[in-house]
Every structure is written in C-alpha cells, then in structure tokens.
C-alpha cells in the first residue's frame, strides 16, 4: 500500500529547497525528491527526523490512503 506524503507542501510552506531539506535531514537531494514524488518510502527513522524538522507529528507528513 503506497504511503502518501505532504513533504513537498510542508517544505514549500517553510521556503526550503530540496537541497536545503536534504542537508538538514542528512540525506541526498534525490532521496527528498523521490519521497516527494512517491517513488520511495522513507524508513521510520527518516520519517521521524523529518517530523522533528517540521515540528509536526509524523502522520501529518505521511499517511496511508483511505
């Protein structure tokens, strides 16, 4: 079951580039891009890192489709 992501939206709200977010999260820009386009589902630890960076619950970034 594919996980949906609001990463692009949240990143845009904060005016972050993919490169900038990748730097903060300690991953490559390609990883961020692949998560945003739904080609790649992050590990739990990376999802939690992103949630911490955006100061939001992880389920606000990633969710299972209804």
């Amino acid at each position, binding site marked *: 079951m594919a996980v949906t992501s609001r990463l692009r939206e949240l990143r845009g709200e904060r005016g972050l580039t993919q490169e900038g977010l990748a730097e903060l999260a*300690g*991953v*490559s820009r*390609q*990883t961020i*891009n*692949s998560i945003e386009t739904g*080609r*790649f589902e*992050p*590990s739990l630890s*990376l999802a939690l890192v992103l949630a911490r960076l955006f100061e939001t619950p992880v389920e606000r970034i990633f969710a299972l489709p209804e």
Partner: protein
Amino acid sequence: MASVLNSIFGSRIFYNWRMAKRGWPYLLACLISAGLAGAFGGFARVSPHPVPFGLSRSDGVAGFVLFAALAGLLWWRFSSFQDEMFRRIQNYSYGWGAGVTVAVLSVWGIAYGARIVPPIDPFAPVMIFAVVKGLFWSRAIRTWL
C-alpha cells in the same frame, strides 16, 4: 554554464558519485584496492607465462583475495556514511548480483558434473557478479530516483 553543469551532475547517472562527498577517502581507498586486486588477478591469470615482478600464480591469487577482501571492507565502511536511499539501491543490486551469480554457478556446476560443460573460469564469478550488480544498480536508480 552553472545550470548546464548542475543539470549534468544532477542527473541520476552521477547519483552515487555525488554521495561520495561523505566518506570519500574510503571510496578512494576502495577503488585503489580493487585496482590492485584486478592487477594481482591478472598476474594469476597469465601465469605460468612470465609475469611482472617475478610473481607466481599463487602470489597473484593471494594478492587478489587479499585486496578484493580489503576493497569489500572499505566499500562497506564507505556505504555506512551514505543515506538510506544509497543503501537500499546497494542492497538491492548486491543482493540480485549475488543471487544470480550463485544461480549461474549452481547450474554450471550441475552441467559440469554431467560433463556437458568445461570447468568454469575461476574469475568468472567475479565478472558475472560485477555485470549483474551493475545492471540491477542502474535498474534501481531508474526505479527509485
């Protein structure tokens, strides 16, 4: 000019090289070690003909095994600096590479046992693994990047 360079080096082809900014000394040492393994393997192959530096076939095999193992350890250390996307691509391609290599060797071994084929070249597994791993690496990049 900068945008052209960015578009070139931003392509998926260079993915693993861009990642090398973390832990690059290990990658460099790994490549040198792999090169030395190849050189020693080459010495072992050309024996019993005259070989450089007076190395015997057993010296060549020993050098190949030593430097190949060292290259593997250095690659493992390098990959520990990379992100989870890199490791997922690596695990996928190395897993398929190893699996296909074992399958080919098994089939070849059975066929050799039945005297259908000659003995396999000792370096064939390395070549099979390298080619298959490369194919699955590029497939993984196209899938996930």
